[in-house]
């Protein structure tokens, strides 16, 4: 339980930050694409007897780099490429699995997540990943914000737009694979997409949205784990459903707030 809580908090923090930039760039679908495609790496790992997650991380590195490269090309639609990665990865995984004899319980643990199987070694790796990611966010934050608004502007300002882009794509891909053990291939996109999507409905500035994203991600994950423990639900779906409920609450709140009766004519001075 202790390991599960630490691991989930670390993942919620990392994926929450990546969500701040992936959601406004309309790249939410990338989470599903990468996570599903990573199943191919996991299947290869299971077949050859190595560490399945290392194979998945290797594959996600390739896909993240490829998607970052393709994102420059305006004539190739990103959502179509992500869809192709998803189909290719899933098909490759299912074909590879036919070469592994017998029942494959590991596959299901990667599909739906198995947070209680997280070991201390996983926590150490996740901690290092979180530290590196947070440092890189600190360094790249301004560039990431400006490239999200207008890529050309960042080049005029002399910012390293390409470095920020590759960090975003490759970092997101690796973080997603890091979370496969927690929420599984099918539900990991929840931690990337839902916290920021909910926060952007409530927040009144980028700063407040980032803070709210972290609160929603961490609180949603911890509460989900406790709910799954108390009611004996599977952890991944418990966290996923709770985050969906938070999103619906945020959506309802934003609609109520936008009613004329709640609007104030006064705009505070900065």
């Amino acid at each position, binding site marked *: 339980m202790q390991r599960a809580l630490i691991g989930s908090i670390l993942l919620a923090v990392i994926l929450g930050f990546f969500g701040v930039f992936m959601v*406004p760039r309309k790249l939410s679908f990338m989470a599903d694409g990468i996570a599903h495609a990573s199943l191919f790496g996991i299947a290869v790992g299971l077949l050859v007897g190595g560490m399945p997650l290392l194979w998945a991380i290797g594959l996600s590195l390739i896909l993240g780099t490829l998607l970052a490269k393709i994102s420059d090309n305006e004539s190739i639609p990103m959502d179509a490429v992500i869809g192709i990665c998803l189909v290719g990865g899933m098909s490759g995984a299912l074909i590879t699995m036919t070469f592994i004899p017998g029942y494959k319980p590991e596959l299901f643990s990667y599909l739906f997540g198995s947070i209680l199987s997280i070991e201390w070694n996983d926590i150490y790796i996740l901690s290092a990943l979180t530290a590196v990611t947070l440092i890189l966010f600190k360094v790249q934050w301004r560039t990431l914000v400006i490239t999200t*608004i207008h890529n*050309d502007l960042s080049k005029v300002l002399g910012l390293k737009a390409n470095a920020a882009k590759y960090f975003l794509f490759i970092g997101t891909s690796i973080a997603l694979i890091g979370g496969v053990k927690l929420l599984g291939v099918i539900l990991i996109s929840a931690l990337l997409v839902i916290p*920021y999507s909910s926060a952007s409905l409530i927040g009144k500035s*980028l700063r407040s949205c980032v803070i709210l994203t972290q609160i929603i991600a961490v609180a949603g994950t911890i509460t989900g784990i406790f709910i799954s423990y108390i009611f004996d639900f599977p952890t991944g779906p418990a966290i996923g459903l709770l985050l969906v409920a938070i999103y619906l609450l945020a959506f309802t709140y934003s609609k109520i707030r936008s009613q004329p009766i709640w609007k104030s004519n006064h*705009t505070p001075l900065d």
Partner: protein
Amino acid sequence: MNFELSNSQANIIECEEITVVRDNKEILCAASCCVPRNSLTFLVGENGTGKTTLVQTMLGILPQREGKISVHPLNREKVNIGYVPQNIEFPKQLQLTVAEYLRYVSNLDKESIHQSLETVDFPLSHLSKTINQLSGGQRQKLLLAAELARKPDILFLDEPLSNVDDTGERHILDVILEIKNKGVTIILITHDWQMVSAHADHVICLNKNFLCEQGTSCICKNSLSKVNIKQIQKITPDPLNTHTGYCYIENV
């Protein structure tokens, strides 16, 4: 080509026979032009002639396949360049406030930012609003203010008066003329020939790119109404000089 280049004292930017290819399509073909120092240079031409491409190439956003672009700072190693792109679509979900945008773009203190906002007549009461709450005209003013705060030597403006009402247009134009008088070189893309006739120090006119290959005639006049041509001809007897593919109207 009867176009004088290599006058680094007079010109702040010189493009020599640049060819630019975008998505496998040749947008600019051996185009040459210059931007005089401290001038208000207008970049005109029909839609699809490559005005934005030329600006983006000058800015280093797009690479040129051939040719050379030189920037000549005066008594300094580096020039500070400002750029207001056409129609920035701010991602709605980013929830960026006006104050946050200015801080990220200009990276300057509050006082300099406030001064720039006042220059373009942008209400300070809007600082805590998200950019998506602003009107099109207010956004244009904000983009201009953010660039002014960075104190540029050269300022590129891609149709800065689109979405701006008449009063705002007049005000922004006054601001542009004022900063030009302070020594800033301005390159402005526009379709407003009345403004070009009234305020241009220098005009670069781009033709349809198919003429690049032919290089025999200039259809720049097609982008002008008869009235506008007359207005320009009042100032100079031979305003339209034909070049290979591109037409330059100098010293209007």
